């Protein structure tokens, strides 16, 4: 962590951008530390692309400040900012070779041809591309190779911050997984600040030092992957990762909450209870217990097992509760639940495994 008195790296203050009646970015403030891998996650329409475009300089904010190491960037045009973006479409110049693409920013910066070539070769190596690709046409490269060329070109600009606009969105699963890891490796090797946007929280979890969750132009929560996962600040963030069990509850007594109907009481743990009045209790399927293991738990209920789904390494069980609510329980595939559909079962969870959110 940086000490006090040091100039913070990238500071965003009250950034606002509207398009006619629609507010895309509604007063966002954010600090990004040097050399971190920061991911902005949000559903489509949340404003994340607009946000990034303002940071890079493609659009100008209606109000607010963008400061890099104390210097105000608002009026600096995109081609003079020490930032560079990898576009979603990659934007590789089709009429230039791989080598010419990578050298483009250096050519603009009037670097000598020999030096350009040297650096381009270094980048090709760093991005694990064969040196022979220098003369290859970009349209003949595979999807993964094109990603690397785009990254090499951005690195050739030698920016302070690299921005990524969902570059892996159009790739198939395996390629995406491979490139996610490679991206992380490049980040570590270059030590540059990466700001990445995606709609997949799962992808963000893999690569990021910190994550910012965006929704409708607001930054809902900023924190490390663990913080986001274990202490989501509201229902939206909690549900963003995937299916969770959610119950509407109000404060009951000592470390307890009760469901709206009043008949179920649950014990909770943790300091989030202190200020809690009403909100939601969120329990992830993978911490739920089913069957004999659940019978001794303080929070438990009876239900009927009515469905099961194989989800790769896990199996998901759907249980219908007494009040017709649907509960999801997940177990690892090598430790399945021994029962048949239609059985009565007990499900439950530990107080420490549930999450309380206000809205």
């Amino acid at each position, binding site marked *: 962590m940086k000490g006090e008195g040091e100039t913070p790296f990238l500071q965003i203050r009250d950034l606002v951008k509207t398009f006619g009646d629609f507010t895309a970015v509604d007063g966002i403030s954010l600090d990004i530390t040097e050399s971190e891998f920061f991911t902005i996650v949000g559903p489509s329409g949340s404003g994340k692309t607009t946000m990034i475009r303002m940071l*890079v*300089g*493609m659009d100008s904010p209606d109000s607010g400040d963008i400061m890099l190491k104390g210097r105000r960037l608002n009026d600096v045009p*995109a*081609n*003079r900012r020490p*930032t*560079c*973006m990898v*576009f*979603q*479409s990659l*934007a590789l*110049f*089709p*009429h*230039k*070779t791989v080598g010419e693409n990578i050298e*483009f*920013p250096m050519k*603009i*910066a009037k670097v000598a041809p020999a030096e350009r070539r040297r650096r381009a070769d270094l980048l090709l190596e760093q991005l694990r591309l064969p040196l022979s690709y220098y*003369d*290859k*046409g*970009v*349209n*003949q490269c595979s999807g993964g190779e094109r990603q690397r060329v785009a990254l090499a*070109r*951005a690195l050739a*600009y030698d920016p302070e911050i690299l921005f990524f606009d969902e570059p892996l969105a159009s790739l198939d699963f395996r390629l995406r997984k491979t490139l996610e890891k490679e991206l992380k490796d490049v980040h570590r090797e270059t030590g540059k600040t990466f700001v990445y946007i995606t709609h997949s929280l799962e992808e963000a979890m893999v690569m990021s030092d910190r994550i910012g969750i965006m929704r409708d132009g607001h930054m809902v929560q900023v924190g490390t992957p663990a913080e986001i996962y274990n202490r989501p600040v509201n229902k939206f963030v909690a549900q963003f990762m995937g299916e969770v069990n959610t119950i509407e509850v109000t404060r009951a007594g000592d470390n307890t909450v009760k469901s709206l109907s009043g008949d179920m009481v649950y014990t909770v743990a943790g300091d989030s209870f202190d200020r809690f009045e009403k909100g939601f209790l969120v329990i992830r399927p993978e911490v739920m217990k089913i069957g004999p293991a659940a019978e001794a738990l303080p929070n438990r209920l009876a239900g009927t097992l009515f469905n099961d789904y194989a989800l790769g390494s896990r199996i998901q069980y759907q249980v219908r509760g007494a009040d017709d609510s649907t509960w999801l329980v997940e177990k690892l595939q090598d430790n399945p639940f021994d029962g048949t559909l239609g059985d009565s079962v007990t499900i439950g969870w530990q107080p420490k495994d549930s999450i309380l959110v206000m809205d």
Partner: protein
Amino acid sequence: MKSRRFSVSRTLIVLWTAAIVVFLYIPIVSVVVASFSHKRYFSFPVTKWTTKWYEKAMASLSVRDLIETSLEVAVLVTIFSVVLAFFGALAFARYDWKGRKFYQKIILLPIFFPQAVLGLALLLWFSAIGVTTSWHTAVFAHMVWIVPIVTLIMSIQVYSFDPSLEEAAYDLGATRWQVLREITLPILSPGILSGTIFAFLLSWGNFPLSLFTTGADQTVPEWLYAKMVSGYTPMVPTLGSLTVGSAVIMLVLAYLVYSVIRRRTLKE
């Protein structure tokens, strides 16, 4: 793959298309044939073939004058039209701006307009502002019709232009001018080339606009028409064929240039 059931209609369509293509070239072939006929007044079958009319045409000073006028007009029209249409096409298909839909429709209007009426209207216009018609005014007149057409042709290519390419170049440090030179123009060069060819040939062969706006000067098509209607000479098919021939040569050259550009653009 189309199933067997459709192959009969497919064959019919292919035959019909071939027949229509032949139909399209009948008059052109006829003109070329007539230019080689020895007789002063054309009749078929041709009894004696000759190239003397071509020799006469090449030697004639008035023919040279006509060709020169047509050429001057066509070259100027091409240069101005391509420049105006290039930016017009960017406005049409590349940038999004308030008023674009309206602009798209307005700019195509002259294409729908009968050229003879346009020519006459321009004649009125020139006389109203006190300009004498000559080949200069013809350049202006041609452009009114040709700029929209070339804009349309270029727009079709501009539509498939990826704007993020320009943004990326800008992001990588290029000035607006460098972006234009390094990215926009090279990628759009096929469209620019097609536009240039069309502009030149449409101006070269244009009659209705030239008729009313060239004043004392005369272009090849004007002369051909005058002779066709009265005072037929075998020079008519001859000059006609020369026009056809030069158009074909231009197109072949353009195709060669285009292939070279394409190869460089795609880096095969």
